[in-house]
């Protein structure tokens, strides 16, 4: 265990070094920035009326984050894993005197760190944009309502927590494929798969069954971040559960996927 921790520390340190100037790092910052801009832009010209603007802001940002999160993860993991394939460095990495487990989990941890950074950027850009709007005009009404940053953080956390299967599965296939396009196409196909199923169901005349539609989306891990937050916001369930039962099931599945992927990693020949 001591050896693993020592090797793990070395691996994380070297992974941090190699993540400099990479597309994965850019994506980490651009995803929250892009999402916040998408929420802020319509607010500039909107007729505010008497609405609680900040409640709407939190609601919209959570929805947008949830909608784009699977795409973000697919691209982030793809780009990150592609660093070794593109540089032809797997063979170099695996002849270093560190355990293979530390290499595998070090890389996975680095992806989780980048996701954490993107989460932090979400909060940072949200705060900056909210205060920016407030400073630009009094009509945004900080006096009447105050933005609930705590709720925003929890909602975003809920969105991120529902993506565990996407992370582990994309990590597995991105390590497996030497090219970047393969894992991205597979990931995006899995996002649109339930829509295709719906089209087929529609043609079969089964779309009337609302429960079935909901189940299709809920049981597709690639749609789950969106359905999870959407259902929550619609129902306004209280208290806010960051890890509802289905998220826990998905987390268990992702642990299993992680184990299989690690087993595959150990057996893989580096050609």
């Amino acid at each position, binding site marked *: 265990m001591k050896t693993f921790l020592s090797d793990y520390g*070395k691996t994380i340190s*070297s992974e941090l070094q190699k993540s*400099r100037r990479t597309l994965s790092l850019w994506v980490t910052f651009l995803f929250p920035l892009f999402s916040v801009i998408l929420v802020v832009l319509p607010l500039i010209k909107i007729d505010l009326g008497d609405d609680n603007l900040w409640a709407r802001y939190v609601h919209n940002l959570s929805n947008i984050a949830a909608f784009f999160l699977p795409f973000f993860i697919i691209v982030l993991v793809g780009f990150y894993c592609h660093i070794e394939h593109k540089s032809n460095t797997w063979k*170099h990495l695996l002849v270093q005197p560190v355990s293979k487990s530390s290499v595998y989990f070090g890389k996975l941890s680095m992806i989780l760190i980048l996701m954490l950074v993107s989460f932090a950027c979400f909060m940072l850009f949200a705060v900056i944009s909210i205060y920016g709007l407030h400073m630009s005009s009094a009509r945004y009404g900080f006096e009447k309502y105050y933005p609930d940053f705590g709720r925003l953080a929890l909602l975003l956390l809920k969105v991120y927590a529902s993506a565990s299967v996407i992370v582990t599965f994309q990590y597995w296939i991105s390590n497996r494929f030497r090219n970047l396009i393969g894992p991205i196409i597979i990931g995006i196909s899995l996002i649109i798969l339930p829509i295709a199923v719906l089209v087929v169901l529609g043609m079969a005349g089964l779309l009337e069954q609302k429960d079935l539609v909901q189940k299709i989306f809920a049981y597709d891990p690639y749609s789950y971040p969106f359905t999870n937050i959407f259902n929550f916001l619609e129902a306004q369930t209280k208290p806010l559960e960051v890890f509802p039962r289905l998220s826990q099931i998905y987390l268990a599945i992702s642990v299993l996927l992680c184990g299989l992927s690690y087993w595959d990693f150990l057996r893989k020949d*580096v050609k």
Partner: protein
Amino acid sequence: MMLAYAIQTTNLNFSFGKAKTLVDINLQVPQGSIFGFLGPNGAGKTTTIKCLLGLLHKQAGDIRFFGENYAENRIASLSRIGSMIEAPSLYDHLNAIRNLEITMKLRGVRHSRIAEVLEIVGLTQDAKKRTKQYSTGMKQRLSLAIALLSEPDLLILDEPINGLDPGGIIEIRKLLIDLNHNHGCTVFLSSHILTEIEKLCTHAGVINKGKMLFQGKMQDLLLSQTGKIRLRVESDDNNKAITLLKPDYTVSENEQSLTVMLKGKEAIPAVVRLLTDAGLSIYEIHTEASDLESSFLELINPTDL
């Protein structure tokens, strides 16, 4: 006490699908040697190196570094080995220093060593340039610098002089000889460039179609494989010597000496006796091994090349 081999394999086997790529490889690389690993394309050189380092999972056999079983001592073994396999493994988006820092962190090497290895491979001036802008030779040298970073006891280099200009080849040759002579580093390298192997290596191994055809001292490969040697003789009357030798030997005349082709070193005393009995004074006599290329071609079927 017998010194353990730096690398020793016992019945190492590997297959790609049903095709047997390595068949019972029993490699023995003595400590302190510079071992040249020769073979035509597709002979199994890179596959052997990848199996040695655990990048390919061997089907059968035993691998030992410095007497220690690799499977049981992977990390300890790798900490003593620097390697460079096939094309350079570099992060193109980073400069040389950052590339070296990645390996430095994984190997727990002191930071000042980076400047030392850059100096050794002559890349100090270009250390802050992104490796994307490097020529093939510069990339090759940086890869070598990475392999040298931890001051390894064993260097495993796959085609280390590929892409280097003549000046670069000479520098790398000097460097490897210096590492071997002054730092006791065992060097195991594969190469297609036979003249370089001949100049550099103390030992050699020849592989073809996944089978070891020869391994041993370079001199043995040059001398005993073909059995043919060249004897250079300088006497007080070279013309008379040629007349005496021609009936029994193939002789050619050089500027001040003559070359006699012999089937083996056992024939040398007879030549000397023939000349001295005829009253000739011999000023100089020495063997010249037949060159590596002819030895290599004799081991490998030329159609395999």
